[in-house]
């Protein structure tokens, strides 16, 4: 026992020393990464080129130029601060090939855990994402929370819009996406969601669309000196939805139809609705507060498929453009009915368009699968081609207008204005 006591004492001294030295000298083992050696990729865009090769564009942040204080690397002769990001582009036979090809250009070791967006060009998406998406699914570094978008136009243009920017375009896209609920004119789809859509039966994938458009606020008067910082002539816009069938892009929903899609998913948690005044002239603006949706699939006696989408929605009245006494309960009731009609319209338009493309982004097939598992087995192979375009969709919207901001009657009712 004496002997053992001594060895325990020895271990007691030795063990902390060994552990401490391990903690200091062996951090990260063979995978030691110093933060200054990493190139933080913030966006990855994938394009296709003929011969089946993958063209990859990766946006890498330059942390030195992003930080405050004295800007590093000022261009000689001009006071242009260092660019806070760089875009690198390569071509490879596979995504991984292209990514490793980048190491020939990028001085730092690329690190993708901070990657905010994954962009696919329209051409790539039309060709089909099946061959390339697996890399993103499998990768440990790439987050499943990164946003997925389809680029209309050239990916390098979206990755470098003109005009001085505070941060990189990738961070700008993320900033826009963060308040998606302000309009709900595009869906917010993470890589995880997108992969889930691709895996699910009876549910097709969709994602938002990003494009560059002309910035109308740019005004250049020929005979005046240019303002200090002229407005850039192009700006990023995210709007609408790209619809997929299996892994291929088949069409787009516009902003109005996109919200129709989002209503059915219960994802509209904000945004604006305008409804016609009961009198016929002028409009009333509503701010959507929240909504819920339920899908109820039915197989009718004659074998026809019907889906009833029940939407419950709440809104605030924020703007009236006609003499309407919104202080009265009957008027509010009337507006609620009109509002329900507008929502129903948005949904039916979206369904009609998706049925044209045969892309079941609504998950009607999945709803039938849940309710009618046995019948689904016969339908599932021909669902997109035969059954989905024939589904009858009935929308029942139950809407409420909760508040009217600070006013009851609008100013217009005072009859000082000629209306």
């Amino acid at each position, binding site marked *: 026992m004496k002997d053992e006591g001594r060895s325990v004492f020895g*271990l007691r001294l030795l063990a902390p020393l060994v552990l401490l030295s391990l903690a200091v000298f062996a951090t990260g*083992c*063979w995978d030691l990464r110093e933060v200054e050696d990493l190139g933080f990729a913030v966006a990855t865009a994938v394009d296709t080129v003929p011969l089946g090769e993958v063209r990859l564009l990766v946006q890498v942040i330059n942390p030195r130029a992003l930080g405050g204080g004295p800007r590093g690397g000022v261009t000689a002769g001009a006071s242009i601060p260092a660019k806070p990001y760089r875009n690198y582009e390569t071509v490879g036979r596979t995504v991984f090939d292209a990514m490793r090809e980048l190491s020939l250009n990028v001085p730092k070791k690329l690190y993708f855990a901070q990657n905010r967006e994954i962009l696919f060009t329209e051409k790539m998406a039309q060709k089909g994402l099946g061959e390339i998406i697996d890399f993103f699914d499998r990768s440990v570094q790439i987050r499943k*929370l990164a946003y997925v978008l389809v680029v209309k136009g050239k990916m390098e243009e979206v990755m470098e819009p003109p005009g001085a920017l505070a941060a990189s375009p990738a961070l700008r896209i993320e900033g826009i996406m963060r308040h998606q609920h302000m309009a709900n004119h595009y869906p917010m789809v*993470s890589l*995880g969601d997108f992969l889930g859509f691709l895996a699910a039966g009876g549910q097709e994938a969709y994602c938002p669309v990003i494009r560059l458009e002309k910035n109308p606020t740019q005004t250049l008067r020929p005979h005046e000196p240019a303002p200090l910082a002229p407005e850039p002539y192009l700006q990023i816009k995210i709007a609408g939805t790209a619809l997929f069938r299996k892994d291929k892009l088949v069409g787009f929903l516009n902003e109005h139809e996109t919200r129709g899609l989002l209503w059915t998913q219960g994802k509209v948690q904000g945004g604006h609705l305008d409804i016609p005044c009961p009198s016929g002239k002028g409009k009333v603006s509503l701010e959507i507060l929240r909504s819920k949706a339920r899908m109820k699939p039915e197989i009718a006696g004659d074998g026809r498929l019907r889906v009833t989408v029940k939407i419950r929605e709440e809104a605030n009245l924020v703007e009236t453009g006609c003499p309407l006494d919104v202080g009265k309960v009957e008027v509010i009731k009337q507006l609620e009915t009109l509002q329900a009609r507008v929502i129903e319209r948005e949904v039916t338009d979206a369904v009609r368009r998706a049925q044209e493309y045969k892309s079941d982004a609504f998950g009607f097939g999945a709803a039938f699968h849940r*309710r009618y598992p046995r019948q689904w087995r016969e339908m599932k192979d021909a669902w997109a081609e035969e059954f989905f375009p024939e589904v009858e969709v009935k929308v029942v919207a139950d809407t409420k207008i909760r508040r009217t901001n600070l006013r009851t009657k609008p100013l217009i009712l005072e009859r000082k204005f000629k209306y």
Partner: protein
Amino acid sequence: MREEGKVSAFQVTLYQVSAVLATLVLFVPTIATMRARQDVWLSGVLACLFGLLAVFIAAKLALRFPEQTVIQYTPRLLGWFLGKMAGFIYVFFFFFVAYINQRQFGELMTTAYYPSTPIIVFIGILTLLACYLVYLGLEVLCRVIVLWGAFGVTFFVLLALVLKDIKVSNFLPFLEHGIGPVVAGAMAPGALFIETTIILMVIPFMSDKNRAVRNSLAAVFMLFVLFEMVVVPAVGVMGAESVSRLMFPYFTLSRRVHIPILPVLERQDAILMVFWVGGLLWKLGVFMHAGVMGLGQWLGLKSHRPLIFPVGALLIALSMQGWESVIDLFAAASETFYIAIFPTFVLPALLLLVAVLRGMRDEPLNREDEG
């Protein structure tokens, strides 16, 4: 024998939980989901019922011989030769669980964080730590596990963070292909729940033995709750199709935490890992201790301590050569049921039957603990 110290019934419960938990949330949710699809939660219930039955039998058997481990009384029950055979099966089973656990830990580390570090580094470090734990004995092991149990709150935190993303529709349709897949899915978690029969090795050191049955059942129930706390959010958030293709579903789930207004809460995998790595170490400690102590008793040694380092080296070698790749390991993990069921369910049931038929029973030594 006294050098192992005394442990309370509560400590033994947590010891049983930590003997299972770490690998229960590693590959098993995927294996179960692959078979049972969206009804995997029901598989958990079935596996729990089976685990309760197995641990009940084991605890009843253990209580018939409260001052000895299973290695010591099998020769008395079955005769010298058969008894030693049975004892060897137990020792080997404990070593098997230990070395498959070592390899799983290594694969998790190299896949998730350290792709270019050789796997032997992780296995070696973990085994050295486990050797130290085994050297210090059962009482220390149990006390550390109780401390670590406080971090079990990680499970609840993760559940709370992903709760809003769980879609009930991911669990429908219910029983799409009947009960068959659910039973098949219950085998993987069942194989781990029955590992709680490790009580057979610690009963002599328990201070309040009369609570052994109740606390063992509680351990299985706790494991069941924790298992459901992993599979329900995993399938609810990602869908059965996606979970059935994941290597480490709980790891991926922890990285799916997303609260738009609080981006600071994203990526909880680091916090999960603190808990998980600890759990894998305790599991290795528990089974290595049981194996080393069992081997010492099987050979009739006075002290099992000289065996610790040789066994550690042997386990490292076995874990390295046992499987070629993570795919190989995964396939082995999905078949553990057939290996585990004999020593943890069939054999205890047989031993109990023999003990009852031969009317063999030992009286507990210290009377003051009864009551």
